[in-house]
């Protein structure tokens, strides 16, 4: 005979007491585990919602970024094309060149070494492109009896640290001539006509359409031939270039950069209307980028709001659980204690005789605590299972194996479910402690006398 056997027989005999006690432990543990499971279920749902929201925002921002990037590329391309259409828009001339001469006559008189263009091409400049050295001089074309601007060019000099770019205009091959509109229309020139200029014969290669500028009274020939004809060997009047699509004070940036490479030169910017248009577009691009950044910030703010809202709800629920669960636990503990107290009263005579036939007070205590522990163990196991089921059933996640796995992935829930059946016997024993002590302290003589 053992305490265990006695306890099991008694539980079997007093089924109502056993069932009610078991129910109390089950409710307490189910409430504890269920609350944890529900909170975890909420947490998982929050994680899912926030992750979806994050993806949604990121996706929208990515699309917007792509759209802005595409628009930016299109803009840059558009600006580049505009620039290309306009041709060279930067002129590098010797510092002492009188610019009024250029504006009044379309010609230049001061020179600088031709090697300047190579020096510039070998530098690391970034603000300009497409370098074209030239000599320009207004001369009387004695053979035709008209004044023209002779411009000698040798074709573009590539900037070495950049990739090769398609030239804005082709070089004029030696022995050929490109003729401006006013000249060829006045002289009735056609392509492949032979003309003589300052004693040298040229074949007309190209006839320019009307441009409405000094180009209309200009003829273009090979640079070396022009230099020889005009007595300007190894010197040039200007370097034409195409500025990049910079924003801000462009000309200052270009001047600063070129001054570092070619001191003693001056930089003039042409075609400001187109540049203003390009600037507007650049500003539009900046505005689009700013709008994108604002959208990113708005997305992040929306996400933060959602996170805060979900966290607030979770905190409220956790707070409620923090109050309700202890209340339920206390209620169940009191109920278990009350049932144990009733059990002790019911077994008064039995306690008396067991003490009389030799059981110690500790053995009587053990009888009640073992019973409480056993009820706690069974109730803990059932309660943990019921709690998980309730948590899943009333949680916001679909009941599935995956849900279970996700819920148990958190150590808090896992530990609660694992520890509940182990802690429930202690909980039950504590709740039954006072009645058990009362039983152990019963004086058998008093009990037997009362009987």
């Amino acid at each position, binding site marked *: 005979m053992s305490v265990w056997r006695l306890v099991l027989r008694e539980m079997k005999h007093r089924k109502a007491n056993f069932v009610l006690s078991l129910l109390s432990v089950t409710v307490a543990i189910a409430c504890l585990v269920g609350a944890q499971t529900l909170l975890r279920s909420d947490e998982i749902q929050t994680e899912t919602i926030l992750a979806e929201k994050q993806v949604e925002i990121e996706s929208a921002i990515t699309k917007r970024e792509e759209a802005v990037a595409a628009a930016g590329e299109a803009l840059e391309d558009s600006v580049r094309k505009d620039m290309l259409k306009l041709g060279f828009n930067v002129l590098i001339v010797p510092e002492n060149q009188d610019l009024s001469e250029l504006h009044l006559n379309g010609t230049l008189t001061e020179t600088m070494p031709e090697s300047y263009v190579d020096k510039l091409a070998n530098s690391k400049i970034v603000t300009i492109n497409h370098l074209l050295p030239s000599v320009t001089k207004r001369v009387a074309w004695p053979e035709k009896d008209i004044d023209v601007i002779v411009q000698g060019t040798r074709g573009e000099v590539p900037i070495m640290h950049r990739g090769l770019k398609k030239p804005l205009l082709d070089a004029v091959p030696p022995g050929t001539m490109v003729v401006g509109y006013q000249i060829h229309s006045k002289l009735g020139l056609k392509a492949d006509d032979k003309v003589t200029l300052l004693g040298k014969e040229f074949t007309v290669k190209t006839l320019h359409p009307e441009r409405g500028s000094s180009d209309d009274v200009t003829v273009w020939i090979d640079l070396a031939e022009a230099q020889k004809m005009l007595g300007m060997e190894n010197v040039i009047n200007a370097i034409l270039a195409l500025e990049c699509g910079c924003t801000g004070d462009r000309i200052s940036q270009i001047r600063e950069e070129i001054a570092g490479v070619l001191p003693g030169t001056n930089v003039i910017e042409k075609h400001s209307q187109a540049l203003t248009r390009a600037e507007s577009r650049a500003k539009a691009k900046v505005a689009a980028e700013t709008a994108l950044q604002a959208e990113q910030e708005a997305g992040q703010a929306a996400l933060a709001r959602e996170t805060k809202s979900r966290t607030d709800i979770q905190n409220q629920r956790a707070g409620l659980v923090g109050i309700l669960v202890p209340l339920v636990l206390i209620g169940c503990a009191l109920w278990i204690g009350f049932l144990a107290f009733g059990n002790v009263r019911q077994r008064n005579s039995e306690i008396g*005789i067991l003490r009389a*036939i030799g*059981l110690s007070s500790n053995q009587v205590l053990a009888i009640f605590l073992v019973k409480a522990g056993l009820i706690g163990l069974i109730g803990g196991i059932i309660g943990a299972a019921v709690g998980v089921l309730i948590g899943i059933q009333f949680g916001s996640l679909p009941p599935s194996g995956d849900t279970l796995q996700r819920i148990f992935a958190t150590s808090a829930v896992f530990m609660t479910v694992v520890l509940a059946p182990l802690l429930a016997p202690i909980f039950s024993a504590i709740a039954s402690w006072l009645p058990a002590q009362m039983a152990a302290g019963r004086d058998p003589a008093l009990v037997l006398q009362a009987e």
Partner: protein
Amino acid sequence: MLVDIQDAKKTYQGASGQVLAVDGVSLSVDGGEFVAVQGPSGCGKSTMLLLAGGLLAPESGSVQIAGEDPYALTADARSKFRADNIGFVFQQFHLVPYLSVLDNVLAPSIATGSPGADQRARELIDQFGLSHRLEHTPGELSSGERQRAALARALLNEPKVMLADEPTGNLDTENATEVLKHLRDFASAGGAVLLVTHDAQAAAAAARVIHLRDGKLDTATEA
């Protein structure tokens, strides 16, 4: 001397003041002796039985059971002492209602944990003619069977002293006779029996009868 009570006094707090339940009683029961204590209700018979059973300490005087003062022991040691040395039989049987006859008889072994208790319990149950009731609960037994089961329980740990409080009070003559026979057998085997009873017929089974009146020893006669 297995039971030796000397000048024992015990008072209770009653509704109308202190009641002297046992007033300077001295009593010795040797091994092999069967002593009956008779007296009217409230004369202190049961109190004297509890004193002798190590359940109620006297306020003065001494109690020696099997040569040892149980009240000098700690509470737990006294419980073990009772389990080892004293058997109890009561008028109300005091069987545990949800245990079978076998488990009831085995109940004292919870205290002693003695090996072979199961075998001894079965022998006792057989000896008391309850083999066919082995797995029955007290509710399924007759009064006589219940008292025999209680007797078997009292004898499980082979006590030296048997204390019986009105053991025949709820039994018919036949069963009462059988219970008294078992008590006599216990005494014949060398044990000391102290029987508390109203019943003169039961007292007649004892070798010695002691009368108590108002907590005092009145007279003693040989049966």
